[in-house]
Structures are given as structure tokens and as C-alpha cells.
């Protein structure tokens, strides 16, 4: 029996204690926003917060998070920093396929919680564990700076109003 808190909800489970947190979240709780990418903590797609720290859920046995507070992408927008990060992601039009973005956003939120104004080197250090095969890295960087209170680098104008003559 493992007791833990997931997204504010207290949960007890009797799954095999060696089950990685990732698969407990995805298969048992059906919280599928946290993604599987490599299973070896190489890509960061599975990043969640454990007591506020960015952790790779794919290599975290559920037994090791007993008594801890897990936060996933599904509720990160409820925190002020998480919301800022999500808004910045949309403002900078970051996502492409989107598969890695849950992990990117969780890593970025953890970074900004500890460091309100990270430098480029600090962003590199915090984010280089998150792989994006679509290559959104420069936009991720811009979005983190925007969320930290900077200016948008590539502002997208809203869709213009349309007029059509019948």
C-alpha cells in the first residue's frame, strides 16, 4: 500500500511498488497528459513535480514518492506560475506536435518557481533534459522569458477581421 497526493487528491494504491510513477498516473489514474518518451530519464516528456521539484516520472518507482505531493500538467495552470507559463506558450505559439510540451512546461514551471528571472545559461541547464524533435527550443526559451516578465519575441497578431462580398 502506497499513500500519496496527486493534484491535491489523497490516493492510496496497492499497485506493485516498483511501478514507475509515470505508468501509475497514465494507466491507473488515466492522467494521460504526462507522456512516455524514453523510459530512461533521457527525454523529459514525463516530467512532473514531486513536492515542487521537476522529476522524471518514468524512472521514479511509486514506492519512492509515498507521502509526497505530485503535481501534473493537468493542474499546473492552477498555480500562478504555471498559468503564466501556459499563457506564454500560447503567446509565443510554441507547440508543434505538442507531445513533449507537457514535460517542457513542467520543467519551465519548476525553474521559474525557484528562479523568477533565469539567464540563458540557467534556462539551458534547466531545459536541456527535455527533448523536442519538432525543434521548438528557441520558442520555449522565448516563452520562459515572457513568463518571467519579459517581452514576447515573436508576437502573433490576432486573426484579422474578415469581410467578404457575397
Amino acid at each position: 500500500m502506497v499513500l500519496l497526493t496527486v493534484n491535491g487528491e489523497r490516493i492510496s494504491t496497492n499497485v506493485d511498488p516498483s511501478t514507475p510513477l509515470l505508468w501509475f498516473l497514465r494507466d491507473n489514474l488515466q492522467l494521460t497528459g504526462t507522456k512516455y518518451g524514453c523510459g530512461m530519464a533521457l527525454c523529459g516528456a514525463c516530467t512532473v513535480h514531486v513536492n515542487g521539484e521537476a522529476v522524471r516520472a518514468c524512472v521514479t518507482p511509486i514506492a519512492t514518492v509515498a507521502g509526497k505531493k505530485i503535481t501534473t500538467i493537468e493542474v499546473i495552470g492552477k498555480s500562478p506560475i504555471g498559468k503564466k507559463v501556459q499563457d506564454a506558450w500560447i503567446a509565443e505559439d510554441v507547440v508543434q506536435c505538442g507531445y513533449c510540451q507537457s514535460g517542457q512546461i513542467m520543467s519551465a514551471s519548476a525553474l521559474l518557481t525557484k528562479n523568477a528571472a533565469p539567464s540563458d545559461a540557467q534556462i539551458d541547464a534547466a531545459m536541456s533534459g527535455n527533448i523536442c524533435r519538432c525543434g521548438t527550443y528557441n520558442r520555449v526559451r522565448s516563452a520562459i522569458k515572457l513568463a518571467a516578465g519579459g517581452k514576447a519575441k515573436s508576437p502573433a497578431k490576432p486573426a484579422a477581421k474578415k469581410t467578404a462580398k457575397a
Partner: protein
Amino acid sequence: MEKLFAIPKAPIVKKPSRRDFLKVSAVAGSGLVIGFNLSLGNKMAAAQAPATDLNQPNAFLKIARDGTVTVQVKHLEFGQGVMTSLPMLVAEELGCDFTKVRSELAPAAPIYAHTAFGMQMTGGSTSVANSWDQLRTVGAMARTMLVSAAAQRWKVDASTCRVNNGVVTSAGKRATFGELADAAAKLPTPKNVVLKVAKDFTLIGKPTRRLDAPAKVNGSARFGIDMTPTQIPNLHTALIAHAPTFGAKVKKFNADKVSGIPGVTHVVQLSHGVAVVGKSFWAAKTGRDALQIEWDLEAGSKADTVKMRQAYRDMAKTPGLVAKKGNPDAFKTVAKSVVAEYEMPYLAHAAMEPLNCTVAITGDKCEVWVGSQFQTVDAGAAATIAGVPPQNVKLNTMIAGGGFGRRANPTSDYIVEAVEIAKKAGVPVKTVWTREDDMKGGYYRPMYVHRIEAGLDAANKIAAWNHTIVGQSIIAGTAFEGFMVKDGVDATSVEGVADTPYDIANMHATLHTTKPGVPGLWWRSVGHTHTAYAMETMMDDLAALAGIDPVAFRRAYLTKHPRVLATLNLAAQKANWGTALPKGRARGVAVHESFGSVVAHVVEVSIDKGELKLHRIVSAIDCGLVVNPLTVTAQVESAVVYGLSAALYGKITLKDGVVEQSNYHDYPVVRMAEMPPVEVSIVPGGARPTGVGEPGTPPIAPAVSNAIFALTGKRLRTLPFDVVSLSA
């Protein structure tokens, strides 16, 4: 794939008839639905009648009573932005409020066939191009019907009506699209519609943020891998132990021991491996890890890339089948020459979402949920394996976490396997490939060797270029062979060489097609991935041999190709080509035409203590008429990173038939800290959209290589780059 069919020129006035379109009068006032007439308009669907409810699968556009406009996107969304750019085409003509536009991925159905390729598919950077007339026409038809409904209601002439942001007005009267949708649905289909001319566009060409972004930043976007028992009751997860070598067979395995593992429900022998089915991923994986399989390796591939490279290099010294006829003897009379061999390895697509497929078979019906670039092919394969009539297969297209060509497989490998497991296990099944399965699973960008003998005459003009390519055919043995292999030459093996825009005297190109026993497939930009490297680094070598600036040297051979020339010039101008750089830095340039578009990159590099550093990438693209500049910029950035990962790291090797790489530690990709700024400029103009997703990839590796050459004088001809060798 882009050469399969030519994209037809756009007439401004479209005359759809009842044979082409069907306006569906929706039941019980559920709004206006525009689809295509299946029974007459598409010979592939002769037996099918369109459904008449709002959720019918054969619509392109639905306008609901609340004014919501839903566009069914016939292509796969796997990052390239079609869930935004295709609705823009509809909305431009419809005149709706774009904030009320929703996009959904269309299931497999004949009406969603690619207008040039004749089957439902995503590839060749053609999604916007092939939809350009079709979806604008859909929007214009709907607008015409909404206006007619308003005119009838108000008893005014339709020409007095104006459409703005989802509202029709005339002489003080006003009605929203939602209010008019039911009445519009009862009207006859317009006999012809007039499409806007480009100068009147108000949405097309405007930077427009992605419609799929909100769901992708809060975890709610459901990818194929995210199917759960909530969506499909009793859904199980299956992992597959694939053969260690391509083609090896199972002799025997310990099913009894594995089926006793908690959570494991079925152990299923497949034609090419063993599947373990369980209540969860972890249960199935625990079961798979416990499998002991004895393989019959005699039937399997013995491919060995070390042996292949020597064999390929030997072959490259002899002429192959002619792909471009020139004068090979001209090389004997040149004044100066370069002879070079190039080696490009196998490459895995390594998309972030590992392959997966969900299948539920009920009686004689088979439903599939999958991120597919080849819906028509995959649905057909599912029918064959499930043993059900093709019309009993429903294939739901799921958004995909990348694909880069891997999800466009003529053999439907990961779909066939999932259907086989679901059928044998007798329960709904989601297969999940581990990263290792995905990396070792084959269908790679094939390994190639190029050999070029090129020379200059006394005036430093290129006077000879003998080019031989060695490598396997992606197309041979597939249903595409008849279209794309001519006289033994697979067009995708030689594209970028045989059709080079450079006006080179006596250029002669030949191809040796090999059969190494390793499954190959298209990989973002297909043949251009290797041909652009050989072409653009040789052009650089020849420029150096001639003592001419690399940009100026190229210009002289591009006089008949103004788009290529203009794109090269724009990149050079934006990169301040020719101006001084800080000590220890150098620039390189490359330009390449593919998928109807042209991309040029200028890269600035330095090397410090054996480490290559990229400082700046300046890119220019001519992709014809731009629909969404944000998408174009994002795709060029994306194509750059994808190509850089291959140039710096990408390499799949085989020893005794076994793939030696397994995960991102031994198949590394570019990460954030290595990423330089990428500045993208768009060449304005163009009457129609051309490709965007792929054309940025081919020129990036040669641009970096050319910068390294400018910096060090050393020419890298084997990919990925051996950067360590440069500091020696």
C-alpha cells in the same frame, strides 16, 4: 513523393456541380453541413451514401446553430500545423469569426483523399497545396448558401448582402451564421462560386496562432498513445517482443511462465514476434521482460553496416543506371578537379511519441485509433488482417507526437501488428512500442554512398560532373513502385541530383540500387536528405577550387531558376554575407529546392577545444503563397533542428543484422543548450502555396559543413560529422 502527380493550376472561378459536391440537408435543424458527393464525385466510394446527421464523417465543414464552425481536417496533425492552416483556407472564403472555428481530424473516408495522390495521406509537404482550391471552395459554397438564406428571409437581392466575421447584413438587417445555418441547409447547392483574388485576402497571409495549442499546453490533447479504458471499455495494453533481426522467426517461447505474471492476460505469438497483453503498460512490460524466446535467425537479415559501406564505396566507382544523362567523358578533359565520396548512415525518425495503435474488433467490425499519415492504406490493411469487409473498418485519426515519415508506411507495420494482436487476444488492445522498440524497429532513412567526380575548365566554369549514388530503394516492393520507379531508377533515390536547378554542363548521374535487407522509408525530405548534402558541399568545393565566393559561384548556375536565386540572395543579404566576422568564426551557405519550395541557410560557426558551436542560422524560404507565416517560420525552425540532429549525431548501425542503437543516449538529438538563434525570412509572392514542412531540412547539414570548411579548410564527407577530427 511530390513528383507523383503535378498539382493543377488554380482557376479563380470554380464551378462545382452536383457531381462534385453535396450539400447535406441536416436532420432536425442541426445546422449546415458541406461535404462531397460520395456517390458520384468519387469513384472510390461508389457504394457509399452520405450520412445526414451532424456527426457524419463525410463533411468538411459544419456550421452549428451557435455559430461554431467545425472544419474536418483530412490530413494528420503531427506538428506541421494543418489544424490551423487548413481551417484558415475555409474561413477566408466563408467570412466567419475565426475565434469560433474548431478543427477536428477527419477519420479515414474516401472523400478525404489527397486531391493529387488519390488516397488519404499526409506527405510530400503537400497538405496545404492540395487543399488550396478544395477548401476555399467549401468555404465559398457555405458563404453563398448562408447569404442566399439571408436574402430569402429578408426578401432582398443577395448582392445587397455583406458578410463580416460570421454575420450577414443588408440594409439594416443582420443575422449570424448560426441563425442562418438551418435555412441555408435547405437551399440548393450553388452552381458556381467565385473565389477571392489574393489581394482581397484578410486571413490568408496573416500570422495566426495555432488552434491546437490550448489543448497541448494543459495535457488535454489526446494522442494515439493516450487511449484508455474510459474511451474504449476493457482496453488492454500490448507490448511486442520483435525479432532481433529483420525477418527472423519465433521458434519457441515460454508462454506459460509469462502468463502467470500478475496483470498479464494474454501471450500471443505473431508472425514476427510475441505480444504480451496486460491490464497496464507496466504489467505487459514486466511480462515481456520475462519472455524467453528462441529465434530462427536463419530467416533474418545479416546486414552489417561496416561491410555495407565498403561494398557501397566499391559500387560507387562503377556507373549504375542512368538517372540524368550527360557526358561522363567530359571529366577527362577538365583543367582542375575534385573527386569525393560521401557516406550517409541509416537514420531513425525517433519521433517523441513512440509508435502505438489501438484496435477494437467487435463481430465483423474493426475500429482503429492511430496517428496515421496513410489512412487509406492503413484502413485497408486493418480490414485484411481483421478479416472484415473494408467498409466495416473505422479508422480514427489521432494527433501524433511527430512522425517525420514513419507513420506513412506502405506495409502498415504497426497497424497490422495491432490488429493481429486484438484478433488473437479477443480483447480491445492498445499496442505501445517502447523507445527501444521504436529505435530498433527499422523503416529507416536508408544508408547511401555518393561519389562525385567534378571539374572546372580553364575559365573556372564547371565542365564535368559525374555523380553516382548507391543505396536501397524506399519504393521497390511497395504499391508505389509502378508510379515512382522508372527504368529501375527510384525517383526518391536521385531527387535533388537528377533534377538539380544548377545549370551544369555535361552533368551525368547514375544509380545503383541495393537490397541490404533493412527496411527503409521516407524520412523528412526523403531523398533530398542525402542528395542536397553531396550537391551543396561539392558546389562549395568547386567554388573554393575556382577561387570564387561560394554565393557568387552558385549564382552563375542559377540564371534559369529565379526562385532559387532569389532565395539564396535573400539569405545571403539577411546574414550580411561577405562582411567580416569575429576571429575564429566562419559562415557557410547552402540552398536547395524540394517539394516545390526553395530554402537557403547561412550558418555561422566556431570550433573551440574540439567543440563545434553554432552561433547563428539565417534562413530564407520561398514557399509560394504563404497561408500562415507563423507556421512557415515554425516549420523552417523545426526542419533546421531536425536536420542538425542528423548532421551532428544521427547514425543507426547494424552488426550481424542487429541494430546497435536503442534510445536517446546512443542516438542523441540536438538539445536546447546547443540551439542557436534561427532567423527566418520569407521570399514574398507566389500564386499558390508550395511545400513547407520538409524543404528546410536538406540544406542545413551542407550549410554547417560549408561553414566548417570555411573555418578549417577540412571537408567533412561522412555523416554524422566527426567534429573531434577537426581539432587535430
